[in-house]
């Protein structure tokens, strides 16, 4: 009996694909709170159906719909059992309380339910890069909860944990020097870092007392926080391992410090301390880059990539050698983090907060950051600037001129660095910045770093240094000089290496091949011992090219890759054509040579070559004479020809 099998109504298509929230809760045997918790932890969210009428099976109103597949996936989650255990525990506790049975209450309380979320992390983020890509929300949430004021602390441990994890993360950013952009808005401080090739953006609230916001269910937020804390713990562990550091990081403490605890917790005091490192071991990638930098390239896209990389490197060393002193009115935490992440040194007044490293009267302070209109400039050897200068400089990736940021000055607009749309309106500040970046000399930290001699001079002769206007120095500094200095550095480095080689060679000569001189024992062939030589990375040209190619490939985005490949193909074609041309040229030349040998002139040349050693002059004269004669005869012939032609022409004319 043929015919189609009839499917029951509601067992197929859109209607079957979606289930309502009530159905899902019933199916999972969970109450709304636990269901919500589970959904947050597993990352399952209600879905918008294509056809709501069908999906809701004709019911009125708008219902929360989940995919049936998702709910089925949730059913296998072991954490549901933890929820049930917790429910039972609560019930038993209540029961014991009602009966006033203290022993039972104690025993029930001792039974701890530990909701372990590790497996969910692994499930949701199968690779580490996935987790880093999704780091924006966890960081923002953790930073928010770390700032919560005490009255709001629902659960002390969560706030404490989020505080610790965020500090650890900030320490990572400082150690890895990967901060890229900062922006201050009403919402808070936006930071952007480049972590393992992923851009991670997070927001830190302003350091103001937070009141409990209306309309925010903190229970839901807490569920998110619990999940994010576990995630951030794992991420921090991997990040520190990638820096070759042990994970629970330790902070180097100084002897005279007021606080002796090594525990990370107090933000500022720890941020200003370096992490414990036993040895600096640089990774290889950096070396390859440097190696490539020395080669000169003409390809424009590659040049751009190189420029970008240089800028990155410069940004991470933007404040290197600079010493900052922060005023009491500034945001210590943010400024410390930002300046340290770009290589600068920071301190503040000892009485203001713990963790200060040097005092205000330190002569080597280059910048003092103040945020009030009138400051009595006590020290002439440093710039007094407003905090915005720091943030703007980081976004501009150069040290901006300080004049615009002097205390009391009306500040230029703080333009968002995140807006990269080029077709849209570009504010004049940004235009100016672009012009500055492309055309004008780039200010670098190096002109602030003074040599030891200068410092000593300063110490002895304070007045003299005070007389000089630092601004003038700043402006006099020429770009070309700066590059010259750079070049000199390079040369010196090369010299050093050469020197090394020489030293080693001498050593080698003395000790090369020490072969034992013993009569009894057989001398072994083809074996020798040599004094080990200093390691120097040797790369062949082919390897270099390969490495460079790989690097270039990495540097290009997928969009540009196609273009780049096209370019490469064209280049190859051009190369092939050039080769062909060169080959044909060689062939031509060969032919010409052969022809020459057969022609008369060729023979003459040959003749001359043979006669070298004899009386060449005579022969040459002879030859010249002969040539002249021949030329003369030729000319005569030609004349004759012309005469003949002319005569013929005349004849023709006459005939006509």
């Amino acid at each position: 009996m043929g015919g189609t099998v009839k499917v029951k109504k509601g067992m197929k298509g859109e209607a079957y694909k979606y289930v309502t929230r009530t159905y899902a809760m019933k199916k999972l045997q969970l109450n709304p709170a636990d269901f919500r918790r589970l959904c947050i932890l597993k990352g399952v969210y209600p879905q918008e159906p294509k056809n709501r009428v069908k999906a809701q099976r004709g019911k009125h109103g708008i219902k929360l719909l989940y995919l049936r597949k998702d709910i089925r996936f949730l059913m296998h989650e072991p954490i549901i059992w933890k929820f049930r255990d917790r429910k039972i525990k609560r019930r038993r506790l209540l029961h014991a309380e009602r009966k006033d049975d203290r022993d039972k209450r104690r025993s029930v309380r001792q039974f701890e339910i530990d909701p372990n979320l590790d497996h969910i992390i692994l499930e949701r983020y199968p690779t580490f890069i996935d987790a880093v890509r999704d780091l924006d929300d966890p960081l923002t949430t953790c930073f928010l909860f770390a700032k919560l004021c005490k009255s709001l602390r629902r659960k002390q441990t969560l706030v404490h944990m989020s505080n610790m994890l965020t500090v650890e993360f900030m320490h990572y950013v400082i150690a890895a020097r990967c901060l890229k952009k900062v922006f201050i808005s009403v919402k808070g401080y936006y930071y952007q870092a480049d972590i393992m090739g992923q851009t991670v953006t997070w927001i830190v609230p302003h350091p103001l007392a937070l009141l409990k916001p209306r309309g925010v269910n903190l229970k839901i937020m807490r569920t998110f926080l619990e999940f994010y804390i576990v995630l951030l713990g794992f991420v921090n562990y991997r990040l520190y391992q990638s820096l070759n550091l042990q994970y629970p990081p330790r902070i180097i403490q100084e002897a005279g410090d007021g606080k002796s605890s090594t525990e990370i917790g107090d933000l500022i005091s720890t941020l200003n301390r370096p992490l414990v490192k036993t040895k600096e071991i640089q990774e290889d990638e950096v070396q390859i880059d440097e190696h490539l930098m020395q080669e000169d390239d003409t390809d424009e896209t590659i040049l751009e990539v190189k420029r970008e990389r240089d800028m990155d490197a410069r940004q991470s060393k933007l404040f290197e050698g600079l010493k900052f002193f922060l005023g009491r009115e500034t945001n210590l935490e943010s400024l410390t983090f930002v300046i340290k992440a770009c290589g600068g040194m920071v301190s503040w007044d000892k009485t203001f907060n713990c963790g200060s490293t040097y005092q205000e009267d330190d002569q080597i302070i280059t910048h003092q950051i103040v945020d009030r209109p009138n400051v009595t400039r006590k020290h002439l050897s440093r710039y007094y600037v407003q905090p915005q200068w720091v943030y703007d400089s980081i976004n501009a990736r150069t040290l901006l001129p300080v004049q615009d940021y002097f205390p009391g000055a009306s500040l230029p607009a703080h333009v968002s660095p995140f807006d990269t749309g080029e077709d849209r309106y570009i504010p004049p500040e940004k235009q100016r910045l672009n012009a500055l970046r492309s055309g004008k000399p780039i200010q670098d930290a190096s002109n602030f770093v003074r040599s030891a001699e200068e410092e000593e001079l300063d110490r002895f002769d304070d007045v003299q240094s005070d007389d000089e206007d630092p601004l003038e120095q700043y402006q006099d500094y020429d770009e070309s000089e700066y590059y010259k200095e750079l070049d000199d550095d390079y040369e010196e480095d090369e010299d050093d290496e050469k020197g090394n080689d020489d030293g080693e060679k001498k050593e080698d000569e003395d000790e090369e091949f020490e072969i034992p001189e013993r009569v009894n024992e057989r001398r072994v062939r083809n074996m020798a011992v040599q004094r080990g030589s200093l390691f120097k990375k040797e790369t062949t040209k082919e390897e270099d090219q390969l490495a460079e190619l790989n690097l270039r490939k990495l540097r290009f985005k997928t969009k540009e890759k196609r273009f780049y490949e096209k370019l490469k193909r064209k280049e190859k074609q051009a190369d092939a054509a050039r080769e062909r041309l060169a080959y044909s040229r060689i062939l031509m030349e060969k032919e010409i040579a052969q022809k020459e040998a057969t022609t008369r002139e060729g023979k003459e040349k040959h003749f001359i070559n043979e006669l070298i050693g004899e009386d060449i002059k005579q022969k040459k004269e002879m030859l010249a004479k002969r040539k002249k004669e021949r030329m003369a005869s030729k000319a005569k012939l030609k004349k004759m020809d012309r005469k003949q032609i002319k005569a013929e022409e005349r004849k023709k004319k006459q005939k006509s």
Partner: protein
Amino acid sequence: MEEKKNIDVLVKFVTKQKQYAVPGVSVSVPADASNEDLNEIIKTYICQGSKIKAADVPTFDFIVEGQILRRLLDQHLQKLGKSFENVISIEYFERLPPPTPKESLNHDDWVSSVHSTEEWLLTGCYDNTLHIWDVKNLGRGRIKDAHKLKIPAHNAPVKAVTWAKTDSDVKTFISTSIDQSAYIWKWDSNTNTVDCVSRCCGHSQSVECVAVDQLKGLFVTGSWDTRLKVWAVDDKKQSTDIQRDKEEEGENKKSKGDKVPKTTPLLTMAGHSETVGGVAWTDVSEIASASWDHTIRIWDTDIGGIKTQIAGNCAFFCISWSPLNKTLITGCADNYIRLYDPRSSEGTLCQQRFASHTKWVSSVSWSSTNQFTFVSGGYDNTVKQWDARSPKAPMYDLIGHKKRVEAVDWSHSKYIISGSQDCTVKAYTAKN
């Protein structure tokens, strides 16, 4: 540059070898002093102070700021970022004499593994055989005299060998192979007869490495199937079983042939996601394993699980642990040798990185007597002898192999032995 040459540095010479001690006064030395210059200075000092003749004074190596001086003094200080103005304390010690070539032993195929005891040398070969050599006869007379025994052991190339019990005349050793099994052997050194004790079955792919613990009762194997398995060298219970089996099978022996009894692992530890390249016992119940999945894991055999994990940046091929300094060295796929200290809980993970090999480092081995020295063999056909305090330059390059070095061994303090893909085992005498 010319001005630089005139700079002098104040140094203070210190030594732990009392016979060569010099007065502890700070001396000014030109900044660009080389190793030889410092040697000259020390020599004159020693000759002035005592009766030792100039000819008898050995050459010294100098440790400046924790690293052995291998370039000019100023360059060394510059590289380490140390100031020239302080008094620099330089420790000196007698330079290790260079090892000397001793013997080259030919095999029929690639040599994958070597291990030596005080008397005997065991090598595993890619033609499925094991060889036992007499260490005493190395470099004396003909090579044939040194060769004791050839054992056609496996059905596939041998990957790793190790001696287990070597106290009595009957010695135990273990060999593993690509045929997914490890064999336990008993060899009588007097009669020169070998007996296969048991065949260890359990791995599902090639068994890459093997290590015996300090008490010689257990051994661990690491395999291409990413698992580690712990076995007993001789399980009493099992041996009785075997006897019973033998009695039972006594009648059918001829028909069945003499089948080797099988053993099963005591413990299996899974966790690595790639081939396990090397294993080492770091304690009575602690194993360190190096894997191609960029991690070193430390396992506890009591728990039967992982204890800690050290993440690296590249695949690890081999691992060696020294009971003298309790640290691990590993050979890596990025041509470096890395030193890890499993005990440290803060600071950097990788304590030191040794650079000199130009290709993969396939094997490393600590010295059994000196806590600072180790040897390494790489795919760049060289064996290198290192001092842990000199990360940029090896002490000596041992040249001789024509193809990739597969295995090195320094468990006999006097011999550095290396096996290679050029089908030879080369032995060098090391002096202490």
